[in-house]
């Protein structure tokens, strides 16, 4: 489905009288999303020309108080990437929400919780302990940990606290649009920004990607047999892969069938199966469960032992099926973990 088709009924908004203000912000993310904005290459200049960037910590120097000083709704759109997992991120999300007409979850982490969302399998204490004490590369004999408040030279610097739960942006503030991907491709980003600037916005809550699974645009689509039946599951490093053939046909888990398209099958073209970063279609509530249902239905064995043997080929179902989507899954977090 071409991108143009996803925004058929455009409601004309009031005309833009001034150069619109745009903010970029990053929360719990790797920085890859920021790269994408830069990757717009020449196009970025066009964007910069058309808009007034009021906040972009990675590239420009603005302060919290500058934003705070703006009138509410004075920013046209905030493109926020990263999951929300600290008090600072949450506070900024709320502030930017208040100041912006449109809040756009940019990238898989803001959209779904992303890779940071996998932390929802552990307690905050567990994570801190691993990172500051038990981690294999850790040399911290005193077991020093960052303190929320410290006394130093008469000053008391404060650090933001990690939250117990990693959240997608829409679990914290209302989100108007989602730009999916880890990271969003330049094409998707361009489409989103263009739609925004040209005032051709789809209905609120839309994910800016075709609402159809990736197989639709996968270059290996034709090589998938119509009688797939899984005798075993392999991981990509465990076998010599046929570079032309559908991954599932080779017994490798590929999330493509349950993941939105729009990335032009970038990973598959790069020789790796889809891991699901664009998230589920609008008809699916839980991406991980859906792909699991699909794959398991097509196992070959019918007896418990045989089934269990094949499923051993997926040693970490949570990490496999919820690589990006755990925080936005039906259960969100390992349910028996305490909060403190």
């Amino acid at each position: 489905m071409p991108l143009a088709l996803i925004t058929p009924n455009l409601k004309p908004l009031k005309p833009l009288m001034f150069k619109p203000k745009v903010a970029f912000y990053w929360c719990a993310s790797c920085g890859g999303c920021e790269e994408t904005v830069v990757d717009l290459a020449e196009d970025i200049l066009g964007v910069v020309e058309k808009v007034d960037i009021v906040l972009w910590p990675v590239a420009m120097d603005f302060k919290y108080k500058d934003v705070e000083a703006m009138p509410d709704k004075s920013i046209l759109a905030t493109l926020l990437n990263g999951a929300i997992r600290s008090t600072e991120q949450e506070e900024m999300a709320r502030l930017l929400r208040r100041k912006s007409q449109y809040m756009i979850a940019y990238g898989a982490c803001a959209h779904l919780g992303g890779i940071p969302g996998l932390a929802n399998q552990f307690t905050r204490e567990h994570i801190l302990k691993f990172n500051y004490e038990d981690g294999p590369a850790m040399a911290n004999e005193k077991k020093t940990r960052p303190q929320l408040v410290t006394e130093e030279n008469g000053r008391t610097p404060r650090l933001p606290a990690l939250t117990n739960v990693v959240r997608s942006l829409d679990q914290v503030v209302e989100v108007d649009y989602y730009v999916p991907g880890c990271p969003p491709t330049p094409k998707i980003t361009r489409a989103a920004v263009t739609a925004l600037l040209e005032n051709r916005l789809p209905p609120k809550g839309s994910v800016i990607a075709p609402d159809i699974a990736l197989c639709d645009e996968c270059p290996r689509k034709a090589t998938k047999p119509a009688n797939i039946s899984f005798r075993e599951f392999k991981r990509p490093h465990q076998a010599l892969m046929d570079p032309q053939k559908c991954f599932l046909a080779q017994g490798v888990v590929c999330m493509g069938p349950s993941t939105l398209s729009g990335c032009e099958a970038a990973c598959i073209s790069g020789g790796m199966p889809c891991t699901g970063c664009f998230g589920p279609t609008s008809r699916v509530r839980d991406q991980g469960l859906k792909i699991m249902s699909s794959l398991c239905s097509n196992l070959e064995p019918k007896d418990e032992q045989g089934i269990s043997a094949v499923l051993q080929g997926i040693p970490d179902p949570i990490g496999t099926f919820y690589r990006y989507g755990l925080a936005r899954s039906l259960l969100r977090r390992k349910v028996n973990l305490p909060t403190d």
Partner: protein
Amino acid sequence: MSDSTNKTPDGKWTPRIVAFFCNWCTYTAADLAGVSRMKYASNIRVIRLMCSGRVDPQFVVDAFAKGADGVLIGGCHPNDCHYVEGNYKCLRRYQMLKRMIADMGIEPDRLRLEWISAAEGEKVRRVVNEMVETVKQLGPLNIPCKFEEWDKEMEALAGHVAHSQSAAGAACPDHAKPQTAQTAHV
């Protein structure tokens, strides 16, 4: 969600079990149990599907997420599926689903798959009673409350933010609320 725990009017917790029964075998068996006036625990809420193959893992997890303490799936015996082999597909998903819910911190015994033929009203009675007993032993799961508990940290911060940002202008109540509903896509 005001009170998501399932309490009887006298304040005692009693489990809620959601059951997905296939139309041809297990649902009919439950009808038979009724016609035979067998007595069993009232904690079960049956949702009828045509086949155990229709049981989407999303249904099971959604039931847990909405407050079920246990989920029971009933289908036709192997080789007896009205739709030839929907029950095998159910079994395959069930095995992985058991692992996944365990990984997500739900005791696997809260999910049970049983083959119950149309003639086995007695088995419905036994399985339901056993299931209720098992879940009683495990205690309340109560995921909706956990969601509330998790989100307390946000409420706390929301209060703090509202306080510290109040100087900068009137807070917009609409935007302070996080979305809980699934976002609609195009």
